[in-house]
């Protein structure tokens, strides 16, 4: 499972991003995206395509952790979101490893609003991929949601620490190497 995590300002200006692989079940933490050479732009594209859903979900669901909000079938990837109250958006792209000849699951990215609004994020479109209990394979499995929640909370704690310094103005790119190592550590710990 490979991850691409990004923090966007309330006006979608990118503040931080990082790519890493799962460390669970023997993972070495290195990202291996489907299309390695265009991975960076591909991931950004997928993230940006889900911003409309985040925009709507933001006013429908009062939680900070919005869980699984969108799926990008062509890359069998899906996105989970977390909203900081001060407007910053944490978006995590999950891309399962390349399984031989699996067909992408049925329906496309059903927006949250499309299906009747229910408390669990996405009830439809259970993926036909081999459902394994490993983190991330099944977007709505309790282990995945819990793991991503812990990851997001830990990143949020470090984001608040960055924000509390009087010299950090909202919308400033977060360049601190310590912040980056903290996010990496959180990824290694939970994902």
């Amino acid at each position, binding site marked *: 499972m490979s991850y691409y995590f990004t923090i966007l300002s309330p006006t979608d200006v990118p503040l931080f991003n990082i790519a890493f692989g799962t460390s669970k079940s023997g993972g070495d933490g290195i990202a291996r995206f489907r299309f390695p050479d265009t991975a960076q732009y591909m991931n950004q594209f997928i993230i940006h395509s889900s911003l409309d859903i985040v925009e709507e979900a933001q006013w429908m669901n009062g939680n900070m952790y919005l869980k699984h909000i969108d799926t990008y079938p062509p890359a069998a990837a899906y996105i989970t979101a977390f909203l900081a109250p001060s407007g910053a958006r944490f978006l995590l792209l999950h891309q399962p490893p390349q399984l031989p000849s699996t067909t992408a699951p049925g329906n496309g990215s059903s927006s949250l609003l499309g299906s009747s609004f229910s408390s669990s994020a996405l009830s439809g479109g259970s993926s036909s991929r081999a459902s394994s209990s490993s983190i991330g394979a099944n977007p709505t499995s309790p282990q995945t949601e819990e793991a991503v929640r812990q990851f997001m909370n830990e990143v949020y704690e470090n984001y608040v*620490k*960055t924000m*509390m*310094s*009087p*010299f*950090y103005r909202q919308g400033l790119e977060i*360049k*601190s190497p310590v912040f980056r190592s903290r996010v990496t550590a959180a990824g290694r710990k939970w994902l």
Partner: protein
Amino acid sequence: MSATKASRIGEELWKTRIDKVNAELVTLTYGTIVAQLCQDYDSNYQEVNKQLDKMGYNIGMRLIEDFLAKSGVGRCSNFRETADMIAKVGFKIFLNISPTVTNWTSDNNQFSLVFDENPLADFVELPDDGRAQDELWFSNILCGVLRGALEMVQMQVDAHFVSDVLRGDDATEMRVSLVRYIEDEMPPEEE
């Protein structure tokens, strides 16, 4: 008046005579002031240091009256007693900290205040612009406060920071030296 007696007075006054507010309100307010100065003087840190010292001087000339009114202490008989009064009573009743007095010079006219905690610098990380950590003294207002307050009780002193944990040093230390006792009673003009 020994240092322990001064600390007892400080503790007693803090418990019984001082109205208190949430420390974070002061921390964030001070942070806003410094950030605003850095913006107004577009990161000319020498100028920001000067402005902070001037602001502190203006505060010190007023704060001494509050200190005397609340503590009711009499005139110190020598500079060593003044140092304990500053560290164990002054800083205690205003910032609820007690810096250590150390590094006396043989002529008893110079000492250091070492701060193991500094509420003004809580949450703070200096800008990573390759200059701030060499030029900015974040808590410089405290030097001005000492200078202004002591000038009102006929002691001309010089106060400046020699190290700060925000700059990556291991301790925050301020050097205070007695320049002279002021003879005439003429009021110092407000800078």
